[in-house]
């Protein structure tokens, strides 16, 4: 029977989707504290109680790792938060992260039956509530660990995929070492996503958790340089590669090497990993640009534009070649950006950066675009409008148009096949690469995607690696 037509349930349908308390835009655009403050117990209970507990929950099919969503939500309704977090962690080992940065609106929440009424259950917010409750309660549940198998696994990269594989395999009794090129673990969660969207204390907590399970984390170790994959294979039984998509794209237009032109990776790494916003207390310098532009329309573009505002920019502007409707960023993020005062220049494409006599960016020459026929991605293709060039004054511009996988590992590992996009060839179900004893997952396989997909890929690879380590079958 269709849940919605059930008269009993109909009578208690609550369409009041509980808002998440946030710092006010005036306040938050001047600090780096988290924007969204999280549900109170009361709000979480209220929101969870709206769930209709569908017999065939469509939300679960919308989740890349198939979390038992009605299951954990019903725990919140019973106020048994401890059971709720356990339920969540059966499928998702990073709920505090996913509750914050997962695009729920296009995954689980998009499938919610209440979406028809414009009031889908805020699954992500309830997820975040449970994870934060666990952190606050201090009662982190450590699952039982299997007996040591004596098998050793090396994990390359400490982002969401690597952390997931590490957590799963260590519980199965294997000896796990994560190798990280930077000085702090967490991958994109640490260097990329700003504090105001994902506090670094949360990432550190997740890393500490896998360490508490017995995972060894070796930072400042560049696989491909410090040691090659083949050298690691001498000491380890299996390897998982989760090196992400870290090679920034530029647009190949004149003036891109002027000072004041940054890749989003550089700008965000200076700010997040190196804590540039605390300069000169931290030694990594960052400029406090007054007129700031960001090219691109994804979450990374929003992160950069919002960071610039917090650094005291008078003007922070998103320049995007399509229209608002095509922005790849989460709606929540583009709305947050807009509320904070980020200006959106849509249907605009930079064609040239113009510098001053000292080699610093002074102006951006742009061209107006219009939307034509749909392209391969299904979105309407932006087409240049002839003779519509114009210039805007800018002190800095961040190029946030995407990343491709870092070639460091593939290029130093003979026999590891890549696609023409530079991603690793790997089995979709197991993450198995073209080399024996080597698995891969996350952005290095899919190209730049989401935290949850990387985690899901890590889960599958962990299962396959365990199978190999116990049966010898690859």
């Amino acid at each position, binding site marked *: 029977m269709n849940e919605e037509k059930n008269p009993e349930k109909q009578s208690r349908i609550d369409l009041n989707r509980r808002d998440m308390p946030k710092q006010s835009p005036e306040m938050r655009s001047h600090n780096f504290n988290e924007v969204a403050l999280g549900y109170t117990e009361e709000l979480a209970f209220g929101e969870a109680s709206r769930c209709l507990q569908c017999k065939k929950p469509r939300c679960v099919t919308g989740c890349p790792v198939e979390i038992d969503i009605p299951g954990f939500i019903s725990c919140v309704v019973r106020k048994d938060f401890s059971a709720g977090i356990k339920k969540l962690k059966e499928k998702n080992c990073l709920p505090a992260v996913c509750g914050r940065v997962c695009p729920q609106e296009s995954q689980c929440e998009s499938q919610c039956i209440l979406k028809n009424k414009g009031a889908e259950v805020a699954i992500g917010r309830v997820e975040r509530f449970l994870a934060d409750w666990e952190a606050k309660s201090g009662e982190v549940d450590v699952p039982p660990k299997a007996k040591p198998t004596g098998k050793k696994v090396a994990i390359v990269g400490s982002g969401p995929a690597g952390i997931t594989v590490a957590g799963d395999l260590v519980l199965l009794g294997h000896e796990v070492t994560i190798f990280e090129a930077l000085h702090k673990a967490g991958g994109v969660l640490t260097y990329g996503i700003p504090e105001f969207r994902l506090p670094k204390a949360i990432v550190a907590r997740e890393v500490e958790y896998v360490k508490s399970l017995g995972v060894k984390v070796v930072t400042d170790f560049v696989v491909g340089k410090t040691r090659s994959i083949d050298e690691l294979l001498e000491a380890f039984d299996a390897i998982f590669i989760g090196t992400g998509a870290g090679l*920034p794209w530029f647009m190949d237009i004149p003036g891109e090497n002027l000072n004041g032109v940054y890749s989003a990776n550089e700008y965000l790494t200076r700010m997040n990993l190196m804590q540039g916003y605390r300069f000169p207390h931290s030694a990594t310098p960052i400029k406090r640009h007054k007129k700031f532009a960001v090219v691109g329309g994804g979450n990374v573009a929003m992160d950069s534009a919002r960071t610039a505002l917090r650094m005291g920019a008078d003007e922070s502007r998103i320049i995007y070649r399509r229209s608002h409707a095509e922005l790849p960023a989460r709606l929540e993020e583009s709305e947050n950006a807009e509320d904070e005062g980020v200006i959106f220049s849509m249907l605009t494409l930079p064609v040239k950066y113009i510098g001053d006599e000292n080699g610093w960016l002074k102006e951006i020459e742009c061209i107006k675009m219009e939307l034509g026929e749909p392209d391969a991605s299904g979105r309407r293709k932006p087409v240049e409008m002839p003779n519509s060039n114009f210039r805007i004054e800018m002190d800095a511009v961040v190029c946030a148009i995407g990343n491709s996988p870092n070639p460091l590992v593939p290029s130093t590992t003979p026999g590891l096949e890549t696609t023409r996009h530079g991603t690793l060839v790997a089995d979709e179900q197991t993450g198995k690469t073209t080399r024996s004893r080597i698995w891969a997952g996350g952005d290095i396989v899919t190209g730049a995607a989401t935290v949850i997909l990387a985690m899901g890929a890590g889960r599958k690879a962990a299962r396959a690696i365990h199978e190999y380590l116990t049966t010898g079958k690859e």
Partner: protein
Amino acid sequence: MMVPNMHLLVIEAPEIASKVKAGQFVIVRANDEGERIPLSIAEWDREQGTITTIFMEVGASTGTLACLEKGDTVATCVGPLGNATEIAHYGTVICIGGCYGIGSIYPVARELKAAGNRVITVLEARSSYLIYWAKKFVPLSEKIFNITRDGSLGMKGHINRLTEIIHSLPKPPDRIIVNGCTYLMAHTSEATRDLGITTVVNLNPIMIDGTGMCGVCRVTVGGQMKFACVDGPEFNGHEVDWKEFLSRRKAYMSEETLFSRRSEPKTETHKEGKCQA
């Protein structure tokens, strides 16, 4: 401190020491608040598991490193990064070192000599007292030329006197490799362009991760955008856009000067006025 303002740092890093090749660098972070800076590797000891870097104290980060005492630790030392110097039997190679590059050109000269090349060494400094490691080059070099700005050792002037050195040789060198400050590398490249001598430079731009992730070290080489950390650090000096490179290197000059020099000379300095002895 080896010579005024120039410091030598030996770091225990067995994994790096076991892999490093001439021309490579490490990224070092002095402490938890420190900046990540690239330093060329000048020497290593695979058995002791140590690497040696030589750097000039110019700002905050090098200042902090310069203040380290024996037995202290650095928060980060990662590498070996970048591609190694291409070593082959070229014939005659001029190795030019200035500033920290006197140190980093040393293993290059050694490898070249081992590969059967005739090595001619050129050391450049403002004054004779700023030249270090001169003796280490003696057994490697067919000939050593010194150039000092004040003429206190060898030829007077700067690297523009390189053409005289080249002309003084029985036949032009087959290759020139130069490590040091931007001016040294740019002027060398300018001087050899018309002579058609392959000139290899080892670039030292601002870097953060050193693995190709941030792109701050991008440089135009032969009209193409390259990342010095993964595509280099060595490039054909005739193809580098030096004006752009210099301007990018100076991007944070004003931030750097926020800090004053923090290390003091370790030896007694002469006090003005009365002599205490």
